[in-house]
Structures are given as structure tokens and as C-alpha cells.
């Protein structure tokens, strides 16, 4: 049996792995089969992770974290968790290939999943003009018109990225101001290809085989407008990925996993949570990394305590 299994391979998972590996806990990291490295694998330049004054590409940053964790003895498995048994002193993790892994402690750092608009035809046209990944799909919209939906950092980053290819980028936000950082906003406002449309929501997506346009509705006066676009990029945030632990771990009102105070301790002993899955507010690579440190240290203390308890029991019960 292992000391520790870490589920997730974003900044939280890998940072927890670096700390746990350096503490000789020989962690097993379940990195996912196609989403290893987490959300940063889909970004381009990361300019706000400390230590990289020139910026660093998201995938490059994640590869470095992975190598750093491996250097100290973390073992990484590229598969997906299909089920978890977290109650009791032995935690069981079942993977997509059917293998079962056991450990005394688990760090859960699965991040979040992109939110959908939840409107008709979104699913049907997904991959045919509706996209959640500007870095993957932007190049197919050369000299075309596209819309980006959202008002946070990722929406503005995607809009700016898409100006490399598209002629016009409509940036559609349901409020009259952005949540995004000042640096991102300045860049977007200064870009002649980006047209900001405030106070509007997407109500319809048009197109039989592919997106040919969208219908937007003004949230203030209800007026409808049709925009001729060939692509629509959805960046309206993400929801914590908690489905594997429903019924096992307590959740916070925000939908994130509930943790005790500033710690990573969940409602079950020996189960710790870190990164975006516990954070409804900040959701940065650097805060996720810090949260991974907290989880690794909490897990280390927990494992030391149960080792002490076992020793004490051996002393107390002479053979």
C-alpha cells in the first residue's frame, strides 16, 4: 500500500507531488489520460507565474512541474479515476484500466470543468464552430468573424489570441464591466479587431452543419441582435469537478469541496483537497500551487500521526 495518492496534475497536484516526494512519501499521481497538466495545457503565454519574467507557455510550465515532481520520486500514471472509496483508514482508487490503488491518504486536486451556456444547439454544434479552446481551434477562423463569450481573464485572453487569425472578434459580456485583470482589459480595449458588446447574452446559435451566426439579447432592454459569426468561443468560467466525491465529501455552498479553515482537510480524515476544486474565488496557477503545498504538508502530518499511533499501539500491546 502507498502512503499517498494525488488525483490531478495541474499546478495544485504537481506542487503537492513535489512536496510529498521530497518528504519521501513516494506519491502516485493520477494525471488523467487526456487532460494531464490541467487547464494551463490549453493556454499560451502565462505572464503572472512568479519566476518567469519573460512569461512561459502554459504547456511548458506544466511539463517543468511534472519533471520536478518526477525528479524527487513521484510516480505518474496517465489514466482517469473512475471511482473512489475514501472512507476508512485505507483509501481505494480505481482507474480506467481497471487497476485498484490503495493508500493511507489522498489529495484530491481535480480542478474544474468548463461551464456551458446551456442553450439550444450548443451541444450539437460543439466542434462545428462552438469551441472551448481558442488555442486549439483559433487557426481555423482565419479571415472570419468570431464571438467570445465571457468577461474574465480567460475570455479576454482568448479574444486577444483570436485576433491573430480572425478579422473581427466580438467580445460579448452580460454585464457592463469585465472581471478580468487591468492588464488584460487594456490589451483588449486597445485591439482594433476586438469589438466589445456589453450587457448581452447569447440566446441562439444558428447553423445546420456549422455555426453561421448567433442571436444575442440585451440584458437591459431585451433587444435582440443577430451577429454573423462562424465561430463562438465560450469562456464563462468553470465549475469545480466534484462528481467523483459526491456523497463522500462535504461540499461548500459554492459547490467547491469544503475544507477546514485555511487547511486542506476535508470532511474525511486522510483526504485533503487543493487547487480550483476548493477555491471559488481566486483560481490562479500560483494560488493553486500554494494550495498544493498546504495539502502536501497536511498529508505529511496526517501520515506521521498515524505512524506514531501504530507505534504506540505496538508498545501498549506486548506480544
Amino acid at each position, binding site marked *: 500500500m502507498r502512503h499517498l495518492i494525488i488525483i490531478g496534475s495541474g499546478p495544485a497536484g504537481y506542487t503537492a507531488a513535489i512536496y510529498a516526494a521530497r518528504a519521501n512519501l513516494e506519491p502516485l499521481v493520477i494525471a488523467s489520460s487526456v487532460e494531464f497538466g490541467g487547464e494551463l495545457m490549453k493556454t499560451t503565454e502565462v505572464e503572472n507565474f512568479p519566476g518567469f519574467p519573460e512569461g512561459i507557455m502554459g504547456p511548458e510550465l506544466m511539463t517543468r512541474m511534472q519533471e520536478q515532481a518526477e525528479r524527487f520520486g513521484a510516480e505518474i500514471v496517465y489514466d482517469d479515476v473512475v471511482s473512489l472509496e475514501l472512507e476508512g483508514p485505507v483509501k481505494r482508487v480505481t482507474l*480506467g484500466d481497471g487497476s485498484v490503488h490503495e493508500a493511507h491518504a489522498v489529495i484530491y486536486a481535480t480542478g474544474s470543468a468548463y461551464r456551458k451556456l446551456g442553450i439550444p444547439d450548443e451541444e450539437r454544434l460543439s466542434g462545428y464552430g462552438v469551441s472551448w479552446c481558442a488555442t486549439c481551434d483559433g487557426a*481555423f477562423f482565419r479571415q472570419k468573424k468570431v464571438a467570445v463569450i465571457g468577461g474574465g481573464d480567460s475570455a479576454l485572453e482568448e479574444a486577444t489570441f483570436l485576433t491573430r487569425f480572425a478579422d473581427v472578434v466580438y467580445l460579448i459580456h452580460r454585464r457592463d464591466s469585465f472581471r478580468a485583470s487591468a492588464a488584460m482589459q487594456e490589451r483588449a480595449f486597445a485591439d482594433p479587431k476586438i469589438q466589445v458588446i456589453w450587457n448581452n447574452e447569447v440566446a441562439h446559435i444558428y447553423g445546420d452543419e456549422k455555426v453561421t451566426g448567433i442571436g444575442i439579447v440585451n440584458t437591459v432592454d431585451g433587444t435582440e441582435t443577430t451577429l454573423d459569426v462562424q465561430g463562438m468561443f465560450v469562456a464563462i468560467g468553470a465549475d469545480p469537478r466534484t462528481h467523483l466525491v459526491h456523497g463522500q465529501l462535504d461540499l461548500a455552498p459554492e459547490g467547491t469541496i469544503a475544507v477546514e479553515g485555511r487547511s486542506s482537510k476535508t470532511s474525511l480524515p486522510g483526504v485533503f483537497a487543493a487547487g480550483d476544486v476548493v477555491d471559488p474565488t481566486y483560481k490562479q496557477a500560483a494560488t493553486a500551487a500554494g494550495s498544493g503545498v498546504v495539502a502536501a504538508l497536511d498529508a505529511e502530518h496526517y501520515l506521521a500521526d498515524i505512524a506514531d499511533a501504530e507505534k504506540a499501539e505496538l508498545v501498549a500491546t506486548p506480544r
Partner: protein
Amino acid sequence: MSTKAVTDATFADEVLASDKPIMVDFWATWCGPCRAVSPILDKIAEEHADKISIVKLDVDDNPETAMKYGITSIPAMYVFQNGEVVKRVIGAKPKPALEADLAEFLA
């Protein structure tokens, strides 16, 4: 084993003329999810070599074919049979999910 690459020039001979089902993985070097799904496709190709062939097409180097099939999202994995598209799978997915999508060809 890594899957074979096809190009605009070889597409008709290698894909459209294939007598067994053949899946084309439309991908690009700058697409993270494409790189993630690539080893999974290699594995499926190896395990089901008698049922289906899998080839890859770099959309940057071969824009003609990518445009002809209206690719706007990658990875896009299209199965061709007798020169026609018979199945479209879009987006990187874990191996069991891809095998479920391809069940009719792997049976």
C-alpha cells in the same frame, strides 16, 4: 508504434481508397489536446489493427484536406469507409470513451 501520417497528396490513395475502415486524426503541433490523445490513438490502432487503420493529418501542412472536410475543431477524428465519412469524433477523450465511440468498427 506510431500511426502513419497522410498528406493532401496521399489522402485519396491512402484514405479514400482504403478497403477497411480508416480513421483520420486531424491534428496540429500547437494543439495540446491533440498531443494528449495521440498515444491513445496509437494504442487503439495497435490493438485493433485487423479492424481499423488510424492515420494522422497535420492540418497546418495540409490545409486543403482539412478545409475540404470543414475541420474547425481539433483533434477531429473522422472515420472513412469506401471514401465517405461515416463517423465523426471531436475532442480528446480517454481510451474507453473513444473505444465506445468506435464500437461499431471495433466489434
